[in-house]
C-alpha cells in the first residue's frame, strides 16, 4: 500500500479510461487510495489507467457499466463491491462522479435523442449511481462531482450540455446539506476548457486554442493535472471543511 494523504482509503472514479478521469484516478492512487477505475465503453483505456497506477506502485481495479440504465448501474455497483472486497475494503470512502458526455448545439439543433442521452448520463446517471452508492459511503466520506464552467454561465452553443452541468451543481448543494450531519462532504470541481479528447476538435484549431486560452486569467488552456490535485485535496482530510461547493478550477474564466 502506498503512503500518502489517502492511504487506506478506497475510491471510485467514473469515466476513468482517459482524460480528466484518468488523471484523477492516477492522482488519488498516488496519494495512497485504492481506486476503482470505471469505464463506460473503453475497457482498454480503463485497463491502461489501472496498469499505469500499478506500475507506479498503486492499487486499482477495473469495472464497467453504462450509467444510462439501472441495469448498468446495478452491475457496476456489484462489480464495485467485488473489487472493494478483493482489495480488502467494505466501504467506499471517495466517490468521484466524473463520467459524462458532451455535445454542442443551439436549442434548435438538440434532438430528443441527444437531450435524453445527455440528461440520461450526466443527470439521471449521476443521481442514481450516487443514490445507490450512499449506503456504502461511511461517515466522513467524500462525494466529488466533476461539473464544468459551462454550468455556471451562458453557453448557448452547448445549451443542453450546460444545463446538465448546472443540474449537477444543484445536486451538489442539496446533497451536501443532507449528508453533512454524517460528516460526508459533497463538492463539485468545475474545469474550464481542458486539453483532453473531450475537446479534441477544439484543440486541433490553433485559433480556438488561443481564444479559449485567453479567456482564462492564467492565459492558457487547462491540463488534466491542473484539475486532479484539486479533487485529491477535497478527497483528503485537508479539504474536510469545504462542502456544498463548486470549486472553479478554470485558471480564472468568466472574470471579465
Amino acid at each position, binding site marked *: 500500500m502506498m503512503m500518502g494523504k489517502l492511504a487506506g482509503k478506497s475510491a471510485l472514479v467514473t469515466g476513468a479510461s482517459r482524460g480528466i478521469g484518468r488523471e484523477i484516478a492516477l492522482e488519488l492512487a498516488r496519494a495512497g487510495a485504492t481506486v476503482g477505475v470505471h469505464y463506460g465503453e473503453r475497457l482498454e483505456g480503463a485497463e491502461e489507467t489501472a496498469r499505469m497506477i500499478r506500475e507506479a506502485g498503486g492499487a486499482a481495479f477495473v469495472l464497467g457499466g453504462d450509467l444510462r440504465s439501472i441495469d448498468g448501474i446495478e452491475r457496476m455497483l456489484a462489480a464495485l463491491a467485488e473489487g472493494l472486497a478483493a482489495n480488502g475494503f467494505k466501504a467506499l470512502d471517495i466517490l468521484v462522479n466524473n463520467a459524462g458526455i458532451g455535445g454542442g448545439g443551439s436549442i434548435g439543433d438538440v434532438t430528443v435523442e441527444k437531450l435524453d442521452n445527455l440528461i440520461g448520463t450526466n443527470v439521471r446517471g449521476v443521481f442514481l449511481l450516487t443514490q445507490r452508492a450512499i449506503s456504502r459511503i461511511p461517515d466522513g466520506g467524500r462525494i466529488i462531482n466533476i461539473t464544468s464552467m459551462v454550468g455556471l454561465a451562458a453557453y448557448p452553443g452547448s445549451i443542453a450540455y450546460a444545463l446538465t452541468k448546472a443540474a449537477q451543481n444543484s445536486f451538489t448543494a442539496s446533497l451536501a*446539506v443532507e449528508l453533512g450531519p454524517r460528516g460526508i462532504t459533497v463538492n463539485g470541481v468545475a474545469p474550464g476548457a481542458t486539453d483532453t479528447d473531450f475537446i479534441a476538435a477544439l484543440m486541433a484549431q490553433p485559433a480556438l486554442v488561443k481564444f479559449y486560452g485567453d479567456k482564462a*486569467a*492564467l492565459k492558457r488552456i487547462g491540463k488534466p493535472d491542473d484539475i486532479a*490535485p484539486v479533487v485529491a485535496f477535497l478527497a483528503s482530510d485537508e*479539504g474536510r471543511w469545504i462542502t*456544498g461547493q463548486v470549486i472553479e*478550477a*478554470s*485558471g*480564472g474564466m468568466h472574470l471579465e
Partner: protein
Amino acid sequence: MGTLDGKVAVVLGASAAGGTGWAVAEHLAAAGAKVVVAARRREPLEELAAKIGGLAVPCDAGKKEQVAALAQAAHQAFGGIDIAVNSAARPVMGDIATCAIELVQKSLDVNFLGHVNFVREMGAIMRDDGSIVLISTSSASQPVPYFFPYACAKAATDCLVRYAALEYGPRGIRVNSILPGPIKTDLAAHIFSVPGTEEVFEREIALRRVGVPDDFGRIVAMLAGPHYISGVNIPTSGGMHLTRSPREDEMPGEGTFHSDRS
C-alpha cells in the same frame, strides 16, 4: 519533504495563538515553506516565528509603508515571495443608520484598502506562479445584521480578488479569497463560552460543527500550492453558505454579535 519546499510565504495577521493566521503560518511551515509572520504586536509573533523557524516582522496592515516594508523584509531575508496570505482584519461593527462614518472608514482602511496595498506590495515582489490568499468572511455574502461595516469592506475585497486574478494572471499568479464562517478562535472564546451558543451555529452548518483555525490552515496550504484556481471566493464554513447565518436573537447570550473583540 513538503509540497511547499523552497517556497517563501508571508502571513500578515498572524497575531494570536489559537487564531486563523497563526494556524495558516503553522501549516505553511509544516509543508516546507519559509514563513515570514507579521502583525502589529511583536511578542506573540516572536513566539510563533521561533516555533516554526520563521521570521517575525511587526506590521500594521492598515499602513501602506509598513506593508511595503514587510514585502522588502521577506525579500531580503529569503530572496523573494511565492505565497502571500492576508489574515489581518479589523472587526468594526455597527448599524447603517447609526454607525459613525469614521468607523466605517476605519473598517475600509484595514478590511479593503489594507488588502489593496497587500496585493500591490506583495505582487510587486512575488515570483511568477505565486499564490495570494485573502481572508474574507461568510458575512460578506450572508448578511449578519450589525456586521455591515466589516462585511461590506470584505465584500469589496472579494471583488478585488477577481480584478487581481486578471491583472496578475499573465504572470501565473493565482489570487483567491476564502470566506470563513464561525470559528472557535481564542479571540471568540467569550462567544462560545455561553452555553448553547455553539449549538445555534451548528444547526446551520451542514457538517454540524463550528470551524477551528486548523481547518483554515489546511485550506490555505492547498491554495498556496500548485493548482489552477484563480479569481474565486471560496466559502469555508462547513456548508453554512448553503443555509443561513444564525441571527443574534437566536443566541442564548446577550449581545453576542455586539462585541468588537471577535
